[in-house]
């Protein structure tokens, strides 16, 4: 049996090493290696998808395609990777977004080698975070992604990049260290000393006060990463200063580390404590969703606006996970988690598309201020219509990617905690703010300044095409993803 998970995981790293060995390669060649490597990685992810999560022969404590070898047997740490219905869609999303990012970044001329190497390292770290089944391995990938992203923002960001990168790094490191504490607590609390996440999920090692402390530490970590109000302050700064490619990965992939961790660690390893604290988490989720929407409403910078809508969308995911923790009914739990996982995937596609489009707009206009534009739909129709489609998806229009996800989250919320339905206000506000942004940028009187603005070129169309198609496909027929997710969410019992 081919170790497809490990191959997919380390292919990008291999590509990075190949580039490092060719110190004097031309920029085109370097970008080509990046594209080829990430395309092969996507193939690997598709192969994993084809194998699925239900293959009885490979299933092991709820996970399938498990591959493991000894790493530090003295302390019970091993290299263990595998997937289930929650992580597999995220792996596929990650591989796709990275490939598109490489296609889009083909024009980067500033230190192209370092750029591609960092991106490839980031890809391995991201896939590793989603597939790791050993807590130490998870933490390693989780942190490596921080380092890569720090250099990405500091090296290729916009005007105030140094400060934003520093803030991002220190803030998220502060955020991730409590997780280390929780991991150590789970390790020392178990009957046998092991870092095997499957063992922790099957038999939660902590209970009572210790479990609650571990949960608080984990919630802090993942709240910073997601980010949940009031721990979100690093996000707008990092997003606005990051290069477009960095923003796409940051929003499309790295924010999911937070919500994925919320499910994988907090919900699965300390279910009892999470149930007790569920209402608090639910309130945080509701506040985050509403706050994100209101804050986005007040923005004049297009990139900052989209960054805040991420806070809003990830807030819905937190609501979904909190509902899953609170409910005693397995059916509601499955609905809530299905919605949450699908929301992560949709958000990756939609926000990825929006950040790409803002990046393309900024390449042309060198500004992101809403009031600088006007009537762009006539000058650049392809860019305009793409933006409209992505924006409509983002505000939750039926038939587009976010709708089935948010619908399921709201459905579960209505059945479990009806008062939390106030979160639906967020949809109304996002609808308003996107309509305002669209009318300011793409409708109205064309601004003379942008008369010669070129429309999307071939490379940009290649980037946007797959995303827009998937946004529609996922909106109309979400079942091909939901079926995979559902296989896992129905088996969870706590």
């Amino acid at each position, binding site marked *: 049996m081919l170790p497809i998970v490990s191959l997919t995981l380390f292919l990008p790293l291999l590509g990075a090493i190949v580039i490092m060995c060719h110190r004097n390669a031309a920029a085109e060649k370097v970008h080509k290696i990046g594209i080829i490597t990430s395309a092969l990685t996507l193939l690997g992810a598709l192969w994993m998808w084809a194998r699925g999560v239900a293959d009885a022969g490979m299933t092991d404590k709820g996970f399938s395609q498990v591959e493991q070898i*000894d*790493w*530090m*047997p*003295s*302390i019970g740490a091993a290299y263990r990777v595998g997937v289930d219905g929650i992580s597999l869609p995220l792996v596929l999303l990650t591989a796709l977004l990275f490939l598109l990012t490489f296609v889009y970044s083909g024009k980067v001329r500033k230190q192209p080698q370092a750029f591609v190497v960092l991106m490839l390292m980031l890809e391995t770290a991201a896939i590793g975070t989603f597939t790791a089944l050993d807590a*130490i391995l998870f*933490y*390693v990938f989780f*942190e*490596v992604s*921080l*380092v890569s992203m720090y*250099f990405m923002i*500091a*090296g290729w960001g916009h005007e105030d990049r*140094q400060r934003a990168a*520093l803030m991002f*790094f*220190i803030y998220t*490191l*502060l955020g991730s*260290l*409590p997780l*280390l*504490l929780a991991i*150590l*607590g789970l*390790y*020392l609390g178990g009957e046998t000393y092991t870092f095997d996440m499957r063992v922790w999920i099957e038999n939660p090692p902590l209970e009572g006060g210790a479990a609650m402390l571990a949960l608080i530490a984990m919630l802090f970590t993942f709240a910073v990463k997601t980010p949940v109000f009031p721990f979100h302050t690093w996000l707008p700064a990092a997003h606005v200063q990051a290069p477009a490619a960095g923003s796409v990965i940051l929003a499309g992939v790295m924010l999911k580390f937070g919500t994925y961790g919320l499910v994988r660690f907090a919900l699965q390893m300390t279910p009892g404590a999470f149930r007790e604290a569920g209402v608090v988490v639910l309130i945080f989720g509701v506040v985050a969703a509403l706050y994100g929407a209101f804050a986005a409403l007040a923005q004049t910078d297009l990139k900052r606006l989209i960054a805040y809508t991420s806070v809003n969308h990830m807030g819905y995911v937190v609501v979904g996970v909190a509902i899953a923790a609170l409910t005693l009914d397995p059916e509601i739990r499955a609905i809530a988690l299905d919605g949450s996982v699908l929301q992560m995937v949709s958000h990756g596609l939609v926000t990825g598309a929006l950040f790409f489009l803002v990046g393309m707009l900024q390449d042309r206009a060198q500004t992101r201020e809403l009031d600088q534009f006007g009537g762009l739909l006539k000058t650049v129709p392809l860019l305009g219509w793409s933006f409209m489609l992505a924006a409509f998806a983002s505000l939750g229009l039926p038939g587009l990617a976010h709708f089935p996800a948010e619908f399921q989250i709201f459905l579960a919320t209505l059945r479990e905690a009806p008062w939390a339905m106030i979160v639906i206000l967020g949809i109304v506000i996002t609808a308003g703010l996107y309509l305002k942004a669209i009318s300011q940028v793409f409708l109205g009187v064309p601004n003379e300044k942008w008369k010669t603005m070129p429309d999307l070129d071939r490379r940009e169309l290649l980037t946007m095409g797959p995303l827009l198609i998937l946004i529609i496909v996922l909106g109309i027929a979400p079942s091909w993803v939901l079926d995979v997710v559902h296989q896992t969410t129905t088996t969870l019992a706590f």
Partner: protein
Amino acid sequence: MANDLALMLPEIIVLLTAVAALVAEMLRQPRIAFYAAITGLALATVLTIPLLGENATAFSKTFRIDTLSVWAKLVLLPATILSLLLVRAELGGSAREGTAYVLIIMITLASLIMTGAGDTMLLVLGILLAGLGSFALVAYPRTDAATEAAMKYFVFASVTAGVMIFGLTYWFGGTGSTLLSELVVLEKSPALAAIGFIAVIIGLGYKAALVPFHFWAPDAYEGAPVSIAAYLSVIPKIGAIFALAQVVRDLPVESGWQWIIAVVAVLTMTYGYLAALGQQNVVRLLAYSSVAQAGYFLLGVIAVGSSPLAFEALIVFSAAYAAMNLGAFAIVMQTGRTLDAFKGMGYQKPLAGVAMVVFLISLAGIPPLAGFVGKFLLFGAAMQTGFTWLVVIAIINSVLSLAVYLRIVVPMYQQTEHQHPGDVAITHTETIPLVKPVWLAGLFFTLFIGLAAQVLLGNIV
């Protein structure tokens, strides 16, 4: 007796190496002194390997051949070899080059004696011997700064050693013996045990640069040649920490020694990084950083006797610390002592730049590097002992440490187009031979320990 000598073979070889180097220096053959030193230390390292797994004492229980002291040799001897390469690169050709090698080997020997000390007198011997060598090394350049630093170092050492010997008399009075293993009888008189322990932590704390006994360190490192600072920040420090671990092994918990160490650990970590935040001189910054790192070591010392992870944590972190700290100092040697010298360095010397980033983020404890594995084990050991609050403080300090280390990383990747090309060329283009192998070795071990810590862990019994 013969068996005792066999067990002490590595130490004896180190002593003979020092003598050989001294003879060569007296014959005005510093090159031979250098090669003799390297060969002798390498031989001693190889001869240590058969001792792995040994658990014995020599010379009527005064010297311990156990996990800690054997691994101390395996870490400190290679680290001394790397330091010697740096010293040769910096001081090679100067008038008294050979004496530096001799002194360094003597300090390493003193550190080895401390790490295996089973008797308070051996402990005192180790501290004094290491101290004498260190003053001379710091004063080596004969500049005002170096002389002042050596003077401070000397005065501080004399006072702390005096206090320590005075405090040790209480232990002698209580147990009737100078053996550390006899300390268990102090179970009934915790106050007596505590007084002696405070004295010990003053004596060893000065050697390991623990706050509040660290005042000499930044001045000494800044006044001394960079290579000497690199050496002093690694070898005697690890020696003193391991010695502390030997002391607490038989000390009754009732004396509250864990809490004394916990307080010192908090002060050391926090003060070290806060002070480092304000430094403009990279050597001083690294000096304060090494003060703070000593605080992390103490987390492992606290766990001695209560957590099986304690020795593993101390040993892995000491190897990691030696690799990353020597590596970082080696890069400083070839780049320059000021933060300005690092401006744009990452673009001009890509490999050295990457290496420096690796050393610094490893010092901050970011995976998958050596510093992470070490700190992770230290945290686990302290938590198992019940000092979770201390781990929380250590974790908060890790965030602070990142801010400290990024102060060097940020200028490394700043664009320098506006500068005159000539300005930069002077500081960055010269590469001193012997320095590059050192940081390459440091880089290798920082990655290797991070990814394959099992090689160490599997042999710590």
